[in-house]
């Protein structure tokens, strides 16, 4: 699997996800600077990492979506290269229209950093095949703008097409309002594109990859990708 991690000024989970990829896949990913106008043509996976690209001062992800490198990412995604956007990466993917909807300020307006439970809505993708349908996993979140919004029509289309990858849930898997940490519509925590070649999610799989960090629920995602793309 040949992977690349995009580095924007203000990215701050770029190293974390590179470490996770290296641990699982055994090889270091390529780090791609935001000014690159071309994305190598032999990539299998592009990761858009978390952080505060360009400070996120206007809207999270807005400026990054227009960076030179994102044109290349979009072109690669159109060709079917897998794209994984985590946290700020998810925001950038919605702002780039690679994924539908928008990520707004958390319902309670506060930054939230803690572990949350998620249901795996579909194990039928290169990102999630290491999990089982309906499995409950525990991932950390750390965001200020993770409140997923889409209008009714878009939301219905997302649900109809089975594009929801993860939802916030209770430890026992119940998806309800109490488990909805940030006000996201339909408790959506992660979303595929229609072809399931692009995934955006607010929680951080790269932060739970060894026991010292408190768990390993993030490992299957990177293993899934490795298996699918090698």
């Amino acid at each position, binding site marked *: 699997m040949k992977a690349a991690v995009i580095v924007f000024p203000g990215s701050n989970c770029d190293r974390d996800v590179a470490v996770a990829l290296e641990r699982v896949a055994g090889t270091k990913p390529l780090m791609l600077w935001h000014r690159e106008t071309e994305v190598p043509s032999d990539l299998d996976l592009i990761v858009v990492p978390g952080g505060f690209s360009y400070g996120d001062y206007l809207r999270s992800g807005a400026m990054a979506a227009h960076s030179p490198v994102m044109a290349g990412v979009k072109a690669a995604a159109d060709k079917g290269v897998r794209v994984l956007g985590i946290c700020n990466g998810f925001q950038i993917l919605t702002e780039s229209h690679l994924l539908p909807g928008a990520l707004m300020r958390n319902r309670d307006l506060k*930054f939230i*950093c803690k572990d949350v439970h998620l249901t795996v809505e579909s194990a039928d993708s290169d990102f999630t095949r290491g999990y089982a349908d309906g499995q409950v996993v525990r991932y950390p979140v750390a965001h200020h703008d993770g409140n997923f919004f889409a209008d009714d029509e878009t939301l219905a289309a997302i649900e109809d097409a089975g594009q929801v990858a993860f939802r916030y849930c209770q430890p026992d898997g119940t998806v309800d309002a109490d488990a909805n940490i940030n006000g996201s519509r339909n408790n959506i925590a992660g979303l595929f594109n229609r072809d399931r070649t692009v995934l955006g999610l607010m929680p951080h799989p790269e932060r739970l990859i060894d026991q010292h960090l408190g768990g390993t629920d993030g490992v299957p995602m990177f293993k899934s990708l490795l298996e699918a793309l090698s």
Partner: protein
Amino acid sequence: MSEITPEVVAQHGLTDDEYKLVLDIMGREPNLTELGIFSVMWSEHCSYKSSKKWLKTLPTEAPWVICGPGENAGIVDIGEGLAAVFKMESHNHPSFIEPYQGAATGVGGILRDVFTMGARPVANLNALRFGSPDNAKTRHLVAGVVAGIGGYGNCVGVPTIGGETNFHASYNGNILVNAMTVGIAPADKIFYSAAAGIGNPVVYAGSKTGRDGIHGATMASAEFDEKSEEKRPTVQVGDPFTEKLLIEACLELMATDAIVAIQDMGAAGLTSSSFEMASKGGLGVELELDRVPMREEGMTPYELMLSESQERMLMVLKPGKEELAQAIFHKWELDFAVIGHLTETGRMVLKWHGETVGDLPIDPLAQASPEYDRPHEIKRETRGVRANETPEVPWKEALTQLVGCPDLASRRWIWEQYDHMVMGDTVVRPGGDAGVVRIHGTNRGLAATTDCTPRYVQADPVEGGKQAVAEAWRNLTAVGARPLAITDNMNFGNPEKPEIMGQFVGACQGMAEACKALDFPVVSGNVSLYNETAGQPIMPTPAIGAVGLIDDLDRMATVPFKASDEIIVVLGE
């Protein structure tokens, strides 16, 4: 007509005696720019004039100490070629005036102190004191400060792994916001601030200079009163994104051999950074102020020298390295300018479009700043509380009261607003005795904590000082770490009052004793005096920040009970 009237001198916070010393040193009347420079250099905040004598009594040495107090941060050896770099610093007054920005820029300042020395910041902590929960302002201040600390640290991408929070009415009008940063540097590649090499270029990097916080350094040392409202526009706005870029750019440049000396522009900005660098190197400096990147039109030399704009660095480079450095800073989209060079004169000469607008001797100003031995009276209340004097409360009620009391209540609401996991190495999150971050790529860890119990210090400054150090030591050992060293943040009232000065002196004595007994030296620190509102002082608060080393993370200890049927043991008296 002279522009320096007695009123102008007074506005700059200089006493008559101090102004006489100014005239002595200058051998003539200073101009306004020069007077402004004296005023910031000799403010309590920059000169430590009341505290210096006592700080010198703290133990600062141990075989593992690489750099003690006096530099931007303290440094200890942590083995395998690495060093831990850390310091704690207050941003009390600005945080009371504008909680979000005050706290945010406090975090920014302490981060700069650490990465200036070549360390990548790996953990932030804080020590917060607010007024009574019943006070009308407290809620707003807590919310603003916590959001500000989070807003800055989260964006920069350094995990906030611990801290402490207390509430007491004595902080109603004067909250304490003490921020600490821990960084890791290669032990053989540490950067200091002493300038060297006559003719070497002095360069400026980071954000542009605006009219932020002019007089800010003097404000941090002046007692609060009703008039502080007028000083409001002196609050600065933090730009964590630029700080993140500055960290990356500085570390990238530090990986080359271009830097001779480096210093962040903290309180008193360009003035204190340039004076400190030149003074430490025993050299002179000539600055061309018109080359300083400016955010606004019409700025004067006075403003440029006194501005406290954030996210700026001053460096001395090796000759010929300007282009290399410029390329790195431009890659990170930061301003960069060569603004002067080192001289052999021992003087600071300020130029403005070719004309000399200031000319001051460096050493007398930087090193001969006033030092006071203020009268002090240490009040020790030796009588302890006796069991039969405490009211009888049924234990269940006592427990619910304790759990519900603001000083013991869960702090989850606070630390869930801090990204405590970014960088992917946090192995003990907030909520335990000490936070622990793994040393990247190893199975070793750094533990850090902040501690102080002000009411103990109030009752008996000596015992309270000891206790604060001992508590920090215990919190480190409780996670299985070997305690290495401490940084401190001495928050007290007006030192011109003998009783307050006594609290300070007593606390120093107690801390020194505990540090000696525990082989736990002080490697850096910060003093914040004049924490009073309308004559009412805060409780004496010598906050201790401490760092320890865990050699094997598999042998670390944590708070949660691990399984049922395990034996519970209580140690100690």
